[in-house]
């Protein structure tokens, strides 16, 4: 069976900084895959390479059987890949409504957009309450819900999430984690989750890759990694 997404031997540089050193990974349709590792390990570079924001130097990225590593960001969105960027990045002076509509920017099916909008508002009732408010005036947790909702507006097949728990209180992290599980399960969206909060990421994913200074250091089933003594020590610190 064809993989949903495959990285083969991907190299990526920022000027002279070698950010990805021959990264290979893959994911199946319907999976939630976690990408964990320390700050600067290259997790976000993987996502930037998929979305077309950053060109890779060599290697291949294949999505649904097609090479996508030379495509523009708008083509990637049209192919069904939506991204929730790190640090949330709402459009701060736009209303919640306009932020969500921006998520559907590449779509032209008016009735379909309305249906997705209703679905997103059902999933995050908080956004309905704030519908006309400027996004920049909302709390961090609300903004995180908004950017996830905004990404869902594109009706993606693959959802990329970059550090969705960053800067949120533990209770909100729980809520966001539950939403991600629900989106994966109910909406049949495959999820690639980049997290520094490894514990949360491993709990809600089926498989995981651990990056260390631009290389895949470890991969496997999330539940096994979560219980591995050695990994606990390396990636999960003292928090367990």
């Amino acid at each position, binding site marked *: 069976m064809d993989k949903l997404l495959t990285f083969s031997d991907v190299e990526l540089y920022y000027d002279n900084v070698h950010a990805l050193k021959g990264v290979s990974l893959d994911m199946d349709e319907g999976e939630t895959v976690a990408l964990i590792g320390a700050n600067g390990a290259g997790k976000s570079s993987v996502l930037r390479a998929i979305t077309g924001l950053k060109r890779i130097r060599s290697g291949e990225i294949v999505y649904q059987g097609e090479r996508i590593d030379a495509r523009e960001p*708008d083509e990637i969105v049209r192919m069904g890949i939506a991204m929730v960027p790190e640090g949330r*990045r709402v459009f701060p002076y*736009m209303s919640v409504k306009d932020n969500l509509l921006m998520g559907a920017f590449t779509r032209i099916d008016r009735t379909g957009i309305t249906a997705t909008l209703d679905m997103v508002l059902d999933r995050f009732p908080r956004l309905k309450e704030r519908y006309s408010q400027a996004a920049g005036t909302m709390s961090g947790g609300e903004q995180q819900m908004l950017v996830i909702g905004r990404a869902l507006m594109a009706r993606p097949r693959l959802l990329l999430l970059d550090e969705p728990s960053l800067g949120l209180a533990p209770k909100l992290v729980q809520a966001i984690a539950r939403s991600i599980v629900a989106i994966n399960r109910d909406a049949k969206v495959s999820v690639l989750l980049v997290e520094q909060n490894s514990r949360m990421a491993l709990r809600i994913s089926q498989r995981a890759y651990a990056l260390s200074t631009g290389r895949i250091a470890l991969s496997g089933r999330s539940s096994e990694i979560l219980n591995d003594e050695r990994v606990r020590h390396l990636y999960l610190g003292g928090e367990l």
Partner: protein
Amino acid sequence: MAQVIANGVYLGAQYALIALGLTLIFALMNVLNFAHGQMYVLGGFITYTAYGQLGLPFIVALLASGVTLGVIGALIEKLLFRTVIRRSVREESTMLLAAAVAYFLDAVILLLFGEKQRGVPKIVNGVFVSDALIMPYDRLLIGALAVLFIGAFMLFMQFSKPGRAMRALAQDRVAAQLMGVRVDRYSMIGFALGAMLAGVVGGLLVAITGVNSGIGGPISIKAFLMVMIGGAGVVGGAIAGGFILGMIESVGLSVLHAYGDITYLVIFAALMVFLSIRPNGLMGKPWG
């Protein structure tokens, strides 16, 4: 008093329309378009030619100004600014390019239309007279048209899909790209729209004050004044800046008139003090 306010509103509406174009280009591309005044002058001459010389209806002439400038703006963005922005790592490069475009347009305008002050026949005759107010009908009409265009522009930015895309691009470039907004396409649309606004105001004002090839520079300076007062890159700021400058000018001309031609001296002095207190203008966000 009512007279001063009416003059201020009339002037302010034109100014706001000029400032909107300038601030749109700045917000989308971080480009300070020094050629904005020259685009205004070109728009004026096109309306002069179409309405004054060829005898076409004023609205058609206005449309011709807008469309021509829109096309010129799109070409300037695509052929000049896009290449420079892609290749240059220094932001000053686009400023130098904008200044070059300004001088180039100045030369073209001088070559095509000469150095004479040009006016057109009145678009409507008669004067509105009441106890407090004397206002020629053509000024009322031009003022109303300017307000109409401001309204149309704001509705377009607020409710249309391209308008929303341009606001998104101005607020967070990367996030907008991730939504599928193509930066180069919308930079071109924005630049064309900004140039179009400049051309339309030039066409509007040719009916009142006429046009001559030398006023491009001063108009650019006024546009920058308004944007500095209101705050760069903010729609509300441009409109506020336009009406504030129009009002100050109107008040200045009637109050300070007795002391000679010092209105702009006072405006510049006041602006320096104002900017030292609020460097980002009334509604501006800090740059970067």
